[in-house]
């Protein structure tokens, strides 16, 4: 089996699905000739041609809106927005249309598309290149939100997203693109959307994370009897898996790199409070970024939750 990084795993998933299904095509800024600014779509223009890999003008709202039209027409477009921070001008298309097309047309039209976009911090890039505003998207009914945490799940989740009948936002943690290599089977496999993964079993505390925080959480969990859940799909998130784990451990720490206030951690904590409060032996703790804009490179390490902060939170709930 090949050892692939996440860039290669995503590239392979796209190539395989494009080969299998001629409805799948890519569009976005620099996705063709340049192979994407992170090289995720490298080689796909050469292999599938200009009709299926479209280098678009610089127009996020146009890209998103065009993808909706293509999807409704019966294709399975994969629009790429160069960074999550540049989806903001496409919110109207995504929120007011992609997420609602099925409902607005009472099922006559639907919007099966996968919006791919690099996301998250820690790469020392310019402003708006390190956003982690995933919770904004999770607030919008009609949109699924998926975040892989490594090459293996990236391939399986992307293939599942590409076959999903509804719009999926596929957030690719930039810090992980080349950080980890894993065995990735050449043959296709699906990682079911909406299901969390036990990244590490344990019995005294549950730690929930996703994306690039997972790697830090796994480091922090060393030496503890902690169960680490990799959420993978943020909406709909796997509340059953979280509650089952919390029933066992009685303690919950949620880690995300987004700001604290109204982050997805709040939704998870509220769900556990509603459904399993009597199983808790300590308050639920969140380890998050502070409520400030994502800073530039010099402060980013003070912004992103670090291994030590995660350990402190685990200690706090264990010693409560």
């Amino acid at each position: 089996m090949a050892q692939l990084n996440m860039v290669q795993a995503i590239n392979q998933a796209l190539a395989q699905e494009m080969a299998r299904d001629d409805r799948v095509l890519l569009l976005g800024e620099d996705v063709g000739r340049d192979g994407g600014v992170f090289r995720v779509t490298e080689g796909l223009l050469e292999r599938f041609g200009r009709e299926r890999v479209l280098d678009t003008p610089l127009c996020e709202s146009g890209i998103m809106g065009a993808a909706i039209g293509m999807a409704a027409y019966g294709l399975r477009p994969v629009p790429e927005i160069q960074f999550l921070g540049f989806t903001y001008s496409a919110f109207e298309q995504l929120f007011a249309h992609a997420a609602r097309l099925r409902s607005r047309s009472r099922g006559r039209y639907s919007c099966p598309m996968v919006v791919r976009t690099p996301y998250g911090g820690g790469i020392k890039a310019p402003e708006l290149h390190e956003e982690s505003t995933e919770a904004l998207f999770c607030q919008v009914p009609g949109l699924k939100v998926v975040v892989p945490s490594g090459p293996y799940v990236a391939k399986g989740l992307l293939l599942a997203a590409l076959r999903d009948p509804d719009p999926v936002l596929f957030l690719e943690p930039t810090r992980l693109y080349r950080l980890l290599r894993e065995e990735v089977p050449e043959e296709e496999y699906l990682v079911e959307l909406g299901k969390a993964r036990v990244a590490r079993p344990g019995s005294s505390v549950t730690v929930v994370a996703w994306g690039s925080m997972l790697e830090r959480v796994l480091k922090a969990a060393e030496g503890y009897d902690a169960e680490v859940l990799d959420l993978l799909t943020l909406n709909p998130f796997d509340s059953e898996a979280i509650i089952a784990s919390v029933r066992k451990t009685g303690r919950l720490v949620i880690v995300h790199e987004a700001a604290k206030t109204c982050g997805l951690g709040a939704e998870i904590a509220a769900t556990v409070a509603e459904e399993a409060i009597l199983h808790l032996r300590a308050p639920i703790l969140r380890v998050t970024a502070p409520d400030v804009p994502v800073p530039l490179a010099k402060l980013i390490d003070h912004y992103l939750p670090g291994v030590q902060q995660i350990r402190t939170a685990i200690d706090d709930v264990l010693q409560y």
Partner: protein
Amino acid sequence: MPEVLLADFQVKRLEVLNEKGEADPELLPELSDAQIWRLYELMLLARIFDERAVALQREGRIGTYPPIRGQEAAQVGSAFALTKQDWLFPSFREMGAHLTLGYPIPQLLQYWGGDERSQKVPVGLNIFPFCVAVGSQIPQAAGAALAARYRRDPVAIVTYFGDGATSKGDFHEAMNLAGVFNLPLVFICQNNQWAISIPLKGQTASASLAQKAVAYGFEGVQVDGNDVFAVYRATGQAVAKARSGAGPTFIECLTYRMADHTTADDAGRYRSGEEVAFWAARDPILRLERFLERRGLWSPQKREEAAAQAAALVDAGVAEMEALPPPAATELFDEILATLTPRQAGQRKVR
């Protein structure tokens, strides 16, 4: 019924200085030799600053940096027509305009070094922070232009952006606002013919960008963006027009991005060496040197002296930037709101 002709338009291109360094005497702006020499010094400063910034990035001393090489005439020539009272809404690749208006060199480097303290524009300059989200600064310039007119201030509002930005809705919305409200606004498009890997023809099917203004009901002109006199002349006229209340102008500076998109890019993947060489031969600084030489104002030795002066300024800027203490963690919270929320204040305390 015969069809009625509703619109018939022309788009013009302004050229003053040809590649041999010959200027059209009718069109040459009224500038003293000292002013022309100043333009030259500023273009050299922009070039040397840029080379240094790229080198600093390669050495890991600053972060990702977007070179301006090749765009010195388009940036210096336009900013030279402005005053410090005018307002500037830049994108992120107009450091030549910043330098021309006297923006401190250490602060420019500090920004690309990833330190937001640099975004505090010095008092006395009306320059908005660098705008990374392509095109999103343009409607803001329209708002400032509305405000300036409301206040009866005789200033021009200027916004810079690239060819790629003309594909954004924000650009079109701002152009329309400018036309509808007849705003004191100058749109300066740095058409460097590339938006990362997308060439101009992948960005527009129009024969020029300048003609887009026609659809919004005001004047658009293309200028040779490697001709500092053409850029200066067109900007001067547009700014005077704006200040006098005669409305907006769109200036397309046709130039070329001689370097990679940023230090994180490799332009060799998507464009030919011949194309780059073609434009290198049309270097805006060379062209001005040929003009100055014809006037007896230039020699290789004078260039050396001017370059050494510029390099000394840049060296001092680098030293000053590198002498700054790193920001403290609490600076994450600086200037987020006039008063931090209780939660932010609490988060700040534990940093």
